[in-house]
């Protein structure tokens, strides 16, 4: 409220002429018809027809219940509108409740949302309405009493306030009126507070349910982000394969042809061609390693066993590979498993001084277990810093830290045991039921 900065004492904020007082009063008063509406609807049928037979009573009761249920949604949404328009209090919608129709409501009578809304309209509502009426009465009687001196003389003698021509009596009544006027804003504020609390607790989403729903929502979103990243990796791989790699091959082919077929070229020129040819082949080898690391095509059409045997074969160490990954997991999970093994093997080669590596990728139920064990020096540091034995560390998203991150992205677990002196074991478990 612009007219009542926070520094203004509370008494002034609640003065009968303050904006707050009028806002609260308007809010409380406007609530009354909506708060009694539930019961009015419930009893409306009985006022036009009062049956005596049990069957008919039951029928009428059922109809009343249906009427109330039908009214719940509009009433709730009006109440929320009222809170928003008059207090700036935002009560979020409840997707499960607001988006249904009567049939959904009847089908899901046990839904906690429905019962909370009912509590507001049928239990809290009448009391709040009473409070609201009290506030209106305080204002009205306060105003009437304060000015009783003005009209007191004109009251008929049968009136309980008559005769109030006596000055002392007028003073007492006027004083009571002023007190009521002073108290009305506080009463309005109190009822407003109760109403706002009841409305946010009963008409909005339940906090725990809301969090639950949010967790579900976030998990779904994360899964789609992970899938998108995986898709993107595959797209880049395809692009490089179709573009740069083909171009490089044909460049190298051209240079190779020139090298073999050109005659009468000065030695220096031939030297340049030879060097360019060798460079092009080097570039091809580097690009091939990079691209296969992104997403090997063989993973898609032949699965983990085929893709990993290719990886194992490229490692300059004896690798014992055991893959029992049927039935196949989702392509995202397979890609993570592939990445784990190839990254772990790269680490072993770079840092472990190992002579033998064991790789096992085995599916048990809904979990894909990946273990990579080497007989190297150990001392790997999963936190990504330099390890004790020469630093099997990670830098900027690669290495063990990157590995752990990628595993977590699909809700997997990552463990590494690496005592100084070895052996080092990386254990990863990937849930397949995504």
């Amino acid at each position, binding site marked *: 409220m612009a007219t009542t900065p926070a520094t203004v004492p509370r008494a002034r904020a609640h003065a009968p002429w303050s904006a707050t007082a009028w806002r609260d009063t308007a809010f409380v008063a406007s609530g009354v018809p909506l708060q009694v509406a539930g019961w009015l609807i419930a009893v409306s049928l009985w006022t036009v027809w009062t049956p005596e037979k049990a069957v008919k009573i039951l029928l009428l009761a059922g109809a009343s219940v249906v009427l109330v249920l039908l009214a719940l949604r509009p009433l709730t949404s009006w109440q929320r509108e009222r809170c928003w328009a008059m207090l700036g209090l935002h009560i979020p919608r409840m997707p499960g409740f607001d988006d249904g129709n009567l049939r959904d409501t009847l089908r899901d009578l046990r839904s906690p949302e429905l019962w909370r809304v009912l509590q507001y309209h049928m239990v809290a509502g009448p009391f709040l309405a009473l409070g609201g009426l009290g506030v209106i009465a305080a204002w009205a009687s306060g105003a009437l009493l304060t000015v009783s001196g003005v009209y007191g003389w004109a009251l008929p003698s049968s009136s309980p306030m008559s005769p109030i021509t006596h000055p002392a009596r007028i003073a007492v009544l006027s004083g009571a009126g002023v007190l009521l006027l002073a108290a009305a804003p506080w009463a309005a504020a109190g009822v407003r507070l109760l109403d706002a609390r009841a409305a946010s607790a009963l008409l909005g989403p339940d906090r725990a349910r809301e969090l639950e729903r949010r967790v579900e929502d976030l998990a779904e979103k994360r899964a789609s982000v992970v899938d998108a990243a995986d898709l993107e990796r595959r797209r880049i791989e*395809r692009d490089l*394969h*179709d573009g740069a*790699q*083909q*171009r490089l*091959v*044909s460049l*190298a*082919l*051209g*240079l*190779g*042809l020139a*090298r*073999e*077929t050109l005659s009468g070229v000065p030695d220096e020129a031939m030297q340049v061609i030879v060097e360019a*040819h060798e460079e*092009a*082949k080097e570039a*091809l*080898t580097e690009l*091939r390693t990079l*691209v*296969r690391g992104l997403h*090997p*095509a*063989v993973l*898609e*059409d*032949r699965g983990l*066993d*085929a*893709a990993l*045997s*290719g990886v*194992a*074969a*490229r490692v300059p160490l*004896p*690798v014992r*590979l055991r893959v029992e990954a049927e039935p196949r997991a989702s392509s995202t999970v397979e890609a993570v498993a592939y990445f784990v093994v190839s990254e772990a093997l790269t680490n072993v080669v770079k840092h472990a001084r190992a002579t033998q590596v064991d790789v096992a990728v085995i599916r048990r139920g809904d979990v894909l277990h990946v273990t990579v064990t080497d007989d190297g020096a150990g001392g790997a540091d999963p936190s990504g810093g330099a390890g004790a034995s020469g630093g099997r560390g990670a830098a900027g998203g690669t290495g063990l830290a990157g590995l752990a991150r990628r595993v977590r992205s699909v809700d997997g677990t990552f463990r590494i045991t690496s005592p100084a002196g070895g052996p080092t074991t990386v254990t990863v478990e990937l849930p397949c039921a995504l």
Partner: protein
Amino acid sequence: MRIVIAEDSVLLRAGLIKLLETSGFEVAAAVGEAGGLLAAVREHRPDAAIVDVRMPPGFTDEGVRAALVMRQESPEVAVLLLSQYVEERYAAELLAASTRGIGYLLKDRVADVSVFLDALRRVASGGTALDPEVVSQLLLRRHRDPLDRLTPREKEVLAVMAEGRSNAGIAAALVVSESAVAKHINNIFAKLDLPHTEGDHRRVLAVLRFLDGEP
């Protein structure tokens, strides 16, 4: 020698055609996808087909599948597969069908013009040409008993033999004399219990044993 090319990259297709034509081969047809390849092979009956592994529509292993179909339909047509990556699994599938007239090379190898053309000629005349990288992958995966009896040198010889080279080729690759190669090969035959038949067939058997396939 008549060749059919299946390669989806226009650039590389043109490069291959140029390479083959300048080297005295006849390119009967050049197509961009696997279906076209099978049709072209049926129509032109070439001596050999050069096939890219990854082709439309799926861009995965169309070339391998087409090659397996060709092996059945027209076994007399040699197949040289080219790929950006060589995968042990594809090699095993191809060699399981037959080891005659089959080649599987990294695409990079076309840049080494004379080596590539040698491999093509070898395949076209019924031999094999496996990329050294495929061979090393196969070696790592297959460590079975009879092979364990071989000395490291003999394994090296066997590996190069699996690439499809002659004795002279093996000698050049390992920088040893041809007679030493012949001695190693005889030891290999003996250790793998291969019967005395015509020389070349025993070589194929040795390679098959090496690849863990049954002759």
